[in-house]
């Protein structure tokens, strides 16, 4: 009796188990199809820009439009480069991004380490100031900073106003990121080093930095994306054409060509490339970094 009942129960549960498995499998397929459709939708704009860059303007204005270009006119890119000095713009962009990223990463690491490990007077106060600055939109302080750079330092139309602020802490956000990371490193390591006679600075350089390399890469990547996307500061501080960055060059190119869309799309697609390459190389860190910034609170 009992064993029969048990058998029945088990068979029933196996049945429901199977139907649930089947249900789940169906749901996963639906999910997959949805993802394919939505993914295609997200990629469609990028594809459309790219395919437009390979066509003649006459083809662009034809109805019905072609989803794939009839002939892939890569020569459009060569023609665009004649008016759109991409390499120079890229070099200019890197001229301010690379030092900013390095400076921001180093100073954020120092600040994060101090907050995580060291005792000093005024720590809580500084911490509150940092939190406050995180919620302060950069737009608010734009005008006074411009006044500072233009009237006191006379450094408008140089890269200095874009670079120097990143040597000042690299942003509260990144300081916190580093702080969270340093906190996960066992204190015993520091203590052992202290007994061996290492000072706090030695500990930072020889123990903490190697241990939080991943977090530092994340900070560097986040800074890179931020600077890569920033347009307003570049517009304000850079005036002369020889110093134009990719974003400024693109704006000017669009302004001077107006409706030559196939060439404008060539320039647009070229500007996509460095960011995408950078992302593909550092993808693991990117995702990790974004996740960490979200999990941190």
């Amino acid at each position, binding site marked *: 009796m009992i064993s029969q009942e048990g058998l029945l129960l088990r068979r029933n549960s196996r049945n429901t188990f199977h139907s649930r498995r089947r249900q789940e499998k169906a749901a996963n397929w639906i999910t997959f199809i949805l993802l394919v459709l939505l993914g295609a939708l997200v990629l469609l704009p990028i594809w459309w820009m790219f395919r437009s860059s390979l066509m003649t303007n006459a083809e662009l204005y034809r109805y019905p439009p072609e989803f794939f270009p009839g002939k892939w006119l890569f020569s459009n890119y060569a023609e665009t480069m004649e008016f759109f000095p991409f390499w120079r713009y890229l070099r200019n962009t890197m001229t301010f991004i690379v030092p900013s990223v390095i400076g921001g990463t180093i100073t954020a690491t120092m600040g994060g380490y101090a907050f995580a490990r060291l005792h000093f007077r005024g720590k809580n106060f500084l911490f509150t100031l940092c939190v406050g600055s995180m919620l302060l939109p950069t737009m608010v302080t734009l005008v006074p900073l411009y006044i500072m750079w233009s009237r006191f330092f006379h450094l408008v139309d140089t890269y200095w106003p874009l670079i120097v602020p990143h040597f000042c802490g690299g942003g509260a956000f990144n300081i916190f990121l580093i702080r969270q990371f340093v906190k996960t490193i066992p204190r015993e390591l520091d203590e052992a080093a202290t007994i061996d006679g290492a000072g706090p600075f030695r500990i930072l350089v020889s123990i903490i930095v190697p241990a939080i390399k991943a977090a530092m890469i994340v900070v560097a990547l986040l800074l890179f994306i931020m600077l890569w996307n920033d347009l307003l500061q570049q517009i304000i501080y850079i005036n002369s054409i020889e110093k134009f960055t990719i974003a400024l060059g693109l704006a000017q190119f669009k302004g001077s060509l107006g409706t030559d869309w196939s060439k404008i799309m060539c*320039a647009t697609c070229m500007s996509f490339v460095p960011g995408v390459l950078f992302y593909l190389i550092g993808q693991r860190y990117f995702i990790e970094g974004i996740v960490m910034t979200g999990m941190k609170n």
Partner: protein
Amino acid sequence: MSVSPRGKKSTNLVLKAESRTAYLCMFPSIIGLIFITYLPLLSVFTLGFFKWGKGAPSPVYVGFENYIRLFTTDPYFIDSILATVYFSLLAVVGSMIYSLFIAMLLNRRVPARGFFRAVFYLPYVLPAMAVYIGWSWLYESNFGLFNFVLSWLGLEKVRFIADSSLVVPSLAVIAVWLAGNLIVIFLAGLQNVPKVYHDAAEIDGANSWQRFRHVTIPCMTPIIFYNLLMSLITNMQIVVPALALTNGGPGNASCFLTYLMYRYAFISNQLGYACSISFIFFVIIAVLTAILFATSRSWIFYEGDDR
């Protein structure tokens, strides 16, 4: 007995060295906090009471004149607050729903998950300027992609960013498209929801909507709060499309607050007046943030107190 004073002395020395290093490490950040953040904030507040720039080569104290002008005679200011709030509302709500939905799809066991995650994240790494120029071609009034789609569906052509009533929603669509970072954060949050909760709810007979509503959402509230706050601050600062594409138009439909401030400060050279706009902007952000934080206590669910 004789060890203890010497020990104390050496700890003192160690502490001294420690705080010296700390100040050294904090030095760049302290400089930044003073000169890049708080002093400029103070100057924004102060300069808001001055006339400086056009018609006043050196600052002239004018009291509340700038603020009175903003709220009574400025033809753009009120509209630009409305445009900014309208845009932020659409962009924040849209990108929160979109990114939570995509994250929930990505949280299921599907093939090529990493690939899909990369696809949805991709727009986020494209440079803003190029993104807006590219989209302006898709939104083109006659031959843009979306107008092809509309005429294919048998609908009237639409002028999108050239139409004053559609420009803000059109830009909000781009903002949603760019929200890949929110997806990744949501996804990480979803993966942290303890599976036991779902199993328990399932045993109690909860269907998938009920599980979403009563298990997933409560566990996700801290992440939702974080994304909401960050997305709000980002979208309120919207300026690039106005700079790159619309110049605040058509009409003043996309003349967002930050763009208005830019125009006053850097085009018509009214620095003091621009600072008064910045300060109002700061107050708006502060109030919104405060509201979010104040209400957060009632809807954020903290799981235990293990953190």
